[in-house]
């Protein structure tokens, strides 16, 4: 379980998170939604221990995030792969850092995603790079999988492949997946829990199916409504 207690974070004069309290339950697939600048990436970076809150506290299974780095697989929004490497080298690089690397899973996924080990990062398409990032992240058997905008700027077929991969590999109960995205429609049937962020505040959160029962609305519609009533 990941917990945010009255967390605030600013970058200069920009307030990224404004006194938010949140719980990311264990064993669930959680959608972190909101427009650009809502605080999604900042939240993920705080969980990863890449940033520290100005005020408040972030806890991962009751501990400080910096002690839990081995439990986290992180897919950053930016292109973090070295362009001069090929996929095999990028995998080697990841493999040396993490004891939970699952070679069998990696071999299976590389086929499933139609990638080849000798493909050079600098020469592959944006969709293939997105798939490579996914490959390297989910080939680890980490209890927490954090993905920052894994679908943005990617064609619809590749998006489907990414979502299929997540469903195929998801280990119920033991794995917690947090996906930040503004492509809500794509992940409607994928997420258990949702958190809508807006300008550093939690706008709405809850179980996706319960929200549908209560409001008779899809997550996309809920998001639109939440932001229509803003200000």
């Amino acid at each position, binding site marked *: 379980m990941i917990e945010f207690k009255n967390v605030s974070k600013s970058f200069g004069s920009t307030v990224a998170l404004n006194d938010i309290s949140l719980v990311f339950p264990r064993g669930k697939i959680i959608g972190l939604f909101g427009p650009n600048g809502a605080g999604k990436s900042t939240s993920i970076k705080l969980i990863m221990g890449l940033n520290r809150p100005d005020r408040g506290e972030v806890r991962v299974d009751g501990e400080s995030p910096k002690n839990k780095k081995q439990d986290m697989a992180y897919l950053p929004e930016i292109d973090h792969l070295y362009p001069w490497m090929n996929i095999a080298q990028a995998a080697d690089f990841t493999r040396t850092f993490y004891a939970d690397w699952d070679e069998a899973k990696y071999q299976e996924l590389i086929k499933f995603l139609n990638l080849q080990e000798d493909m050079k990062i600098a020469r592959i398409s944006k969709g293939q790079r997105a798939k490579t990032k996914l490959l390297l992240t989910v080939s680890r058997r980490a209890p927490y999988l954090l993905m920052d905008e894994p679908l943005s700027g990617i064609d619809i077929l590749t998006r489907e492949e990414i979502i299929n991969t997540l469903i195929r590999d998801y280990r119920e109960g033991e794995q917690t997946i947090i996906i930040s995205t503004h492509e809500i429609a794509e992940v409607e049937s994928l997420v*258990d829990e949702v958190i809508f962020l807006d300008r550093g505040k939690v706008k709405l959160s809850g179980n996706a199916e319960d929200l549908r029962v209560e409001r008779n609305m899809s997550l996309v519609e809920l998001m639109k409504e939440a932001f229509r009533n803003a200000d």
Partner: protein
Amino acid sequence: MEFNTSQPIYKQIIDDFKKKLIRGELEEGDKMPSQREYAEQVRVNPNTVQRAYREMESMNMVETLRGQGTFVSISADRLEEIKMEMAVNLVDYFISEMESLGYSREDMFKILEQELTRKEGGCR
């Protein structure tokens, strides 16, 4: 299977299985797809499928045998009940929509009669 995302997905999964039972595509003793297979096939969260399967067990539609999987386990009476339930839901929906358009009981019967006859005619 396409989901209506403004309705709970686990309920739509249950309805899908109910229809398969009513149509006889699934019968007593048949093995259900594993939750994982089904989740991959319809592309939904495995936790949602688990919720649907659990619910179907408590509705006396299926039974899970340890280590063997989930099987259709439904009495003829229960199946009849489910079929009736689905029919009543559809008719209720029809009535309330027709009422909202201002149709009277007599007009509803008339239009039903007329459309059924037309359909039969069209099939010939």
